[in-house]
């Protein structure tokens, strides 16, 4: 695990959705990088954010507190937020600390993208 090496966070966009990759250890520093990237993507007009935890082995309580901040920010902009590729240990932690009441977990990135994809309404318009 290297939580200090990179100074920026890996991210990409799929349509209107930003996918942000969390690092192997989510602590204060790496959490704040995610938060900053998330804000940047929302300001750029993304309507959904997926945080991918495929590389994440350990999340500490400060990291979780920053994710709560991310949830707040996303809610304020009425965008959608999905966590994907969360390992079982981290999922239990999110459950324990009440994050799962406010954010949906997806098995992987594809499922996350499906969840954020606008659903057509009865008239066939995307909402």
């Amino acid at each position: 695990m290297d939580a200090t090496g990179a100074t920026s966070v890996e991210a990409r966009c799929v349509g209107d959705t930003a996918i942000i990759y969390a690092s192997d250890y989510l602590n204060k520093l790496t959490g704040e990088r995610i938060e900053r990237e998330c804000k940047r993507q929302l300001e750029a007009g993304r309507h959904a954010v997926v945080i991918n935890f495929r590389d994440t082995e350990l999340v500490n309580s400060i990291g979780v507190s920053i994710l709560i901040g991310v949830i707040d920010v996303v809610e304020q902009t009425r965008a959608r937020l999905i966590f994907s590729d969360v390992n079982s240990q981290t999922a239990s932690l999110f459950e324990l600390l009440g994050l799962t009441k406010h954010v949906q977990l997806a098995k992987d990135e594809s499922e996350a993208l499906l969840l954020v994809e606008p659903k057509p309404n009865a008239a066939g318009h995307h909402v």
Partner: protein
Amino acid sequence: MTHERILSHISRDQFVGREAELRQVINYATQTTEQKLLVSAAPNGGGSEFLRQAYDELFFRRTHAVPFHFSFGKNRGTPAEVGASFFRSFLQQYVAYRRVDPSLCTNPVSLRDVLDLSLSTDYDGVSALLESFEHERASADAASFLRFCLGAPQKLAAVCKRRILPLIDCLALAGEQKDSQLTASVATAFVGRGEAGIVAGLRRQIPGLKHAADADFDVAETIHLDYLNDDDAPTLLNALTRRLQIETDAERRDLVVQQLGGSPFLLAAFAQSARQKGLPLTSYVNCQLLYVDELMGGRMYRHFSNLLGQIAPQAQTRRTLLRILYESRSTETRKASVWTWKKRLGVEGTEFERMIDTLHVHELANSSGVTIELNNEAVVWMDYLTAQYRMEVAGEARALTVANTRVNSLKRAPKMMTRKYRRAAALGLNDLLSRFNCQEVAASLFDYQKFAAAHSGVETEAVHAALDAEADIVRLPQVVSAVDYSAVATSDPTEEGRCVIGYGFEGGDYTDESEIVWIAAEIDSKLEASAELTSEWCERLERIAREAKSHQVKLWLVSPEGFSREAAEVLKKRNAYGSSRRQAELLRARLTSELSKPDSSSSFGGGGGDGGADEYEMVIPMGTDTELIAAHTVEQIARRINFGPEAINQIKLALVEACINATEHSLSPDRKIYQRFRIESDKLVVTVASRGVVPANMLTQNGETNGNGKSRRGWGLKLIRSLMDEVEFVRVDDGTQLRMTKYLHSSGSPPVGSVQQKS
């Protein structure tokens, strides 16, 4: 080490009960230090002989320091004469030591002889010192001559480049005015100076010596010479009587020891008297006849008479003093104001102060500065006072006083022995409470009915195993002062050692809220204690509790055979504990073993652990991501004992959280986190400690909300207790410890409960 005597009055093998203290002196002599060693002796506690024995020991051990002993005796002459005597003794002992010839220490030799006997390497130094001595004696005033003489060891040490260790016996200065020329000069020379030295004084005299020297210095150690205990005192008496060929037996020796309070001086005086009178100490009658003879005209009489004569040289004042002392014995508190004493004695100013100070220093009375109280704990002093009052003040015929004293002392003898036996058989509540030290013990140890139901008729080993497994735990407080109620009772006195008040704190948390008083009593009952007896004792302890004025009180009764069912109900209603003798003894055994458990210690770095192969320690700096280093380490350790991946992750995260907590919550002065990982057969115990301050709300933190229901911070402990099987938050003197345990075969669903706190 056995050797001949030089200054000591009794042989080394007969000098019992002071081995540890003599070792302290030897250790001190071998160190290079400028700090003083003080010997704080009880009156008649053998302080002077101790110093003489120490001298002999140092002489034969040949440490690099040259020992020098001097006692400022009672009949000492003018300050100039004292100075000359000091100077001569010093030079004699110095040359004796250098020549390894102990006989030179005491043989009468002239100063010229001393010079002639000096080793060639010392000759110039000794010669120069002698010249200065003669010059000072001829020209200087008495005060500066005394100062010169007292400074002789230091002067010769500088010239001959040798370390000289003075052993100064100031016990006989106890009756001097604090500001007398001699006391001030001695205190300045040996108590206030920078060089190493051993100074012996009465325990109430030492502060006065320090004051006279205006000393503000570090004392390396203080050796406290109390009276001999119930094991050593009979051994000493046995040695003395054997040497003096007096027939005696153990029971009679015990009586003499009880009566003389374990005082080496009084025991020696008593043995000498038996020798002179050729009286075998094989019956209570013989012992008490001899005792009364001693009180009325023997060494004991002379000792107290000399003391009173020194305190009140005028016969009329002495009689008045006897009256005041005796009459204060019969008042309830034995106390009177200083003003009352002054008025009754008819003595003013410094003379009055000297009298009271001498009474106090010799522990004949206790002076607080405001009140004066007779010390009635010393049996011999009380008997002497009573007899003298009857004869000198009340005008009773001597023969009648002798008869009364004999009769009374004989009537007292069996009672005294009964008290001794009961004291010896007592549980030792004082010691037991002092051992509590925030330890955890099985709750059934304080609940007789529960204990009896589970462990009655079970072997002790099996009971210990069951207690080990007991889930119901009592966290004992840290008792910082255990007071025998008999010593402080103003009414409703209890027997010595049978009722103890333990003042302390719960969880080692030194706050008003955590302050607690335990009141424990050992009660007599041949069978299980009845409800009536238990109620009576509970009421008694509740009265004591009211006197203790603590908002939190725990009552604990110990009855030899426990408590009846009805008595247990009485205890329960009062939220009191009740234990049998067996429970209390099991508790003692467990507290003792707890103390030796490595993990119960708060110290790291070798102080607490057993250093075995199954224990690892590491220290990491507080800082960015250093917790990951700890997490990697614990991962490797957990793997070695086959924890599964999920459990390893849980341990890692718990450790990370513990490190974060330590970093965030302590104002740590060294910014370090101390960790210990101990592998036991079925578990891994991780202890994380840091120095610093713990916020009061630390234990209750459970996530702070940001106003919209989402917690943002303060999850550390909640997380840890969810991830680990057992969590203990331990306050230590200078910081905190978090002890977390993970079992190899835990149930898989982590227990949710409050974080336990202990110290």
